[in-house]
């Protein structure tokens, strides 16, 4: 027979003002199974809590019901008090007599009767509560960082400096991401190579960081603290240990006419190449699709000239297995190409380029060594038109969001152009300028006032080539809506920032939800921006939506701190309010029929099928099983299960039924 203690709190006058607490306590004492029922002025105070502890010890209570404020307020307090008195904390329940009763009803017989009902209901529930232990999950103290851009670099450095192992996986031959392609960065115009390259070297040399470049994530299994990842090291055809990075092979390589991805198609590179001079690791890669040896079977010039004989044509992809406790997604973003815009010529006009291409033109290590030249004839353009919001904020094109950084880099581009071509004229067609960061608006004002960039508020309706010039048709909506035509030499489209290619497949591999634009979905836009709904997987940078470098770095440090917090304990402890699939005696073994209809309903993919075997190994039944590490205790599966085989600890069917029947 259960021995339940009922403790009614007056909460000063908050409850006793409209509920007759003594009457409630007296009524509770008459309920079968209640062996102790008192009321007191302040249950949550120290004397109040010690009353509970004494009662537990004296009367060997098997359950406690506290009639006081909302459990969202003091449930932890009273559960801790019970634990200290030796009673399992999950045998203590609270009845909300304040927020749901005394504060919202007038003082009357009905209010007191409602309070008695709520107490009786909780008494019936406590009778069926089970002692539960917090779930302990071991934590592998190593982090997997996907993406080697500034987000990945910052996250890896922070985690490594917190003393944990980091495995960084970068798809390109070198880390650095889009930031390494930029010339100067707003708002301070400091050169991106100067601020980025030291960090890249720090990553390469950090003892806690293992760097896998030219590699991709093959698969990820497991759950928070216990992930198992497979990484595919794509074959570079170069032995990294022997290669000294002298660059002879790239120099001597006969095929030079391959458009360089790093230079966004403006410059050329050889078949065996290092993407850019400051690449980390500074080891070349053979592009098998264009290398004459791989296409036609003869050449091998690089092998002949390599001083350290590091070329390995027969190198195979390698799969590496790693165990990690957390994953940071830092896969960054891409910038739309100009071929996306029919009204701007479908990318047919050579002198219509996008922002990234302009960065390469402006960059000292770029194909034009920093001189702004027209890709078509190499002349320095006298008139340049910058078109903001090219593709962004345009539902008809399917991209309704604002890409956040284009206003700033467009102002920067215009400023860089004016610094290099003083007498040139720069126009910027914009809808409205979004420069909300620190020193951002001042930067744009400087471009307008000091560098005489002509800002025209209006959209560009069409661009077409006529007599060697690019006719830009637009309108100036501030000066009387007059249609405006500018005959430009160069047009730079600030195209929309989109998710990096392959983001959807990666999200599916990690069971991370993503939006219709393939940006990864954060757990809560305001309160949990660096986490995803999958426990143990964190987000950093533009893979969540386009953002600038300062925000990316701060988010990367945020994700790193979450990972460090996760690794700070020996084991992960989690509320034991998780679903459990019942197991019964043979020959039934479980009421679960193995229909599997609960599995797609679980937002956390916490339910899997388990083969129940007898001692001699024969499979007698396939039934569902809940992974306590992943289950967050929402109970959707419990209500869905036809045969009531799954139950949610803390809110079992019996408890809710008893609670309902006592109301």
């Amino acid at each position, binding site marked *: 027979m259960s021995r339940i203690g009922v403790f009614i709190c007056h909460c000063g006058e908050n409850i006793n003002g409209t509920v007759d607490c003594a009457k409630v306590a007296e009524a509770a004492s008459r309920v079968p199974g209640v062996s102790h029922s008192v009321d007191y002025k302040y249950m949550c105070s120290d004397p109040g809590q010690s009353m509970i502890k004494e009662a537990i010890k004296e009367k060997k209570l098997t359950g406690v019901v506290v009639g006081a404020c909302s459990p969202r307020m003091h449930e932890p307090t009273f559960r801790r008090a019970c634990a200290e008195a030796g009673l399992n904390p999950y045998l203590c329940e609270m009845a909300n007599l304040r927020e749901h009763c005394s504060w919202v009803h007038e003082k009357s017989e009905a209010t007191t009767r409602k309070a008695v009902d709520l107490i009786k209901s909780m008494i019936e529930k406590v009778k069926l509560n089970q002692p539960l232990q917090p779930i302990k999950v071991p934590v592998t103290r190593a982090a997997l960082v996907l993406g080697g851009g500034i987000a990945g670099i910052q996250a890896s450095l922070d985690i490594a400096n917190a003393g944990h192992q980091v495995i960084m996986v970068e798809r390109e031959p070198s880390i650095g991401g889009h930031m390494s392609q930029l010339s100067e960065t707003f708002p301070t115009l400091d050169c991106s190579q100067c601020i980025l390259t030291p960090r890249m070297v720090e990553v390469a040399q950090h003892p806690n960081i293992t760097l896998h470049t030219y590699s991709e994530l093959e698969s990820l299994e497991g759950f928070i603290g216990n992930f198992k990842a497979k990484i595919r090291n794509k074959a570079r055809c170069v032995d990294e240990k022997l290669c000294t990075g002298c660059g002879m092979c790239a120099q001597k390589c006969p095929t030079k006419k391959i458009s360089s991805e790093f230079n966004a198609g403006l410059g050329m590179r050889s078949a065996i190449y290092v993407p850019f001079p400051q690449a980390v690791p500074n080891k070349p890669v053979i592009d098998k699709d264009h290398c004459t040896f791989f296409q036609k079977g003869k050449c091998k010039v690089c092998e002949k000239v390599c001083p350290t004989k590091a070329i390995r044509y027969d190198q195979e992809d390698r799969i590496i297995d790693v165990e990690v406790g957390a994953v940071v997604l830092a896969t960054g973003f891409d910038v739309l190409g100009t071929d996306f815009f029919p009204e701007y010529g479908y990318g047919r006009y050579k002198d219509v380029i996008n922002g990234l291409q302009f960065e390469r033109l402006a960059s000292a290590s770029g194909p034009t060594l920093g001189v702004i030249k027209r890709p078509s004839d190499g002349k320095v353009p006298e008139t340049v038109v910058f078109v903001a919001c090219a593709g962004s904020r345009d539902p008809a094109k399917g991209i309704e969001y604002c890409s956040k950084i284009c206003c700033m880099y467009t102002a920067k581009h215009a400023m860089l152009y004016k610094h290099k071509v003083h007498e040139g004229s720069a126009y910027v067609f914009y809808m409205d300028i979004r420069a909300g960061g620190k020193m951002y608006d001042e930067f744009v004002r400087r471009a307008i006032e000091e560098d005489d960039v002509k800002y025209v508020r209006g959209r560009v309706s069409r661009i077409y080539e006529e007599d060697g010039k690019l006719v830009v048709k637009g309108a100036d909506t501030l000066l009387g809506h007059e249609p405006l035509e500018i005959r430009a030499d160069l047009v730079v489209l600030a195209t929309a920032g989109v998710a990096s290619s392959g983001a959807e497949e990666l999200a599916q591999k990690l069971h991370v939800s993503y939006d219709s634009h393939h940006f990864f979905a954060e757990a809560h836009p305001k309160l949990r921006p660096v986490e995803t709904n999958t426990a143990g997987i964190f987000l950093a940078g533009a893979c969540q939506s386009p953002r600038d470098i300062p925000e990316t770095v701060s988010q990367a440090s945020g994700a790193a701190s979450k990972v460090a917090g996760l690794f700070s304990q020996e084991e992960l402890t989690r509320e034991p309010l998780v679903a459990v699939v019942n197991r019964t005696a043979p020959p*039934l073994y479980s*009421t679960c*029929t*193995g*229909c*599997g*209809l*609960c*599995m*797609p*309903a679980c937002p956390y993919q916490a339910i899997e*099928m388990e083969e129940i075997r007898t001692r001699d190994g024969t499979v007698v039944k*396939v039934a569902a099983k809940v992974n306590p590490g992943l289950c967050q205790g929402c109970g959707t599966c419990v209500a*869905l299960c*036809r*045969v*009531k085989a799954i139950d949610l600890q803390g809110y079992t*069917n*019996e408890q809710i*039924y*008893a609670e309902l029947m006592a109301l």
Partner: protein
Amino acid sequence: MLAKMRQKAKDLLSSGVVSTVIGYGEGSGNRVRALFIRKPDDADKLILDERCVQNLAVYLTKREVRALGRPAVVARVPVMRTIQQLMFEKQVAEGEVAVIGISPDSQVLDFPDLKSMAEYVSAIPFELSADEKAAVEKLEKMTAGERWNFWLDVLSGCSKCYACRQSCPLCYCERCTVECNQPQWVSVPSHGLGNLEWHIMRAMHLAGRCVNCGDCFRACPLEIPLNLLTQKIITDIADKFGGADEYALNAFKPDDKEDFIR
């Protein structure tokens, strides 16, 4: 067509592909009963006419039948649809059952595997017949009071013999929730409450699964039209969710339409 079916049964048995062929045979009175043919020459007892409508898939989840070895089953469209649903619910795996398909115009169909059977049957549009729709609409047009009286009167005869449950191939749960007494979800005695709660639960547990074969209606000693409930749900799911989900209740669309949530 009958000869072809018998021949197919003989081939399946003699070749050892299956050890039992479940089909229809003459019963007592003018009735038809399920036959479990084990020897090839017994296959001549198999018959196929308009009386052969029992959903034989109900035997595919019975331990005693599975113990006999791999069964083949004579399957009209509703039976094939049931097998497709049983496969979706992991009760029947590919290769565990052979199907002697019977097309709507009573031609014998050959399926190399269950997957191709499932493709064949999902190509046939799943919708209620005209008079089934009319019956559902007739009830929908009544007032709530009239519907309450209709169901109280119709369900009052129910003795909870559970023939509707046992005849349904999709009610394969070893311990049905109606037999759960901790907590006692459904009152056991066949008074008004016990009957209403049982039939609500049965209809909801078949929501998004029932293939409308009508066996529950045929099995009831009093022929209570309880399949009106499952037919109503089939109509609702098709109208409101488009009927494209494999199981309507464990899927959702963020913009599911409803007009009653404040």
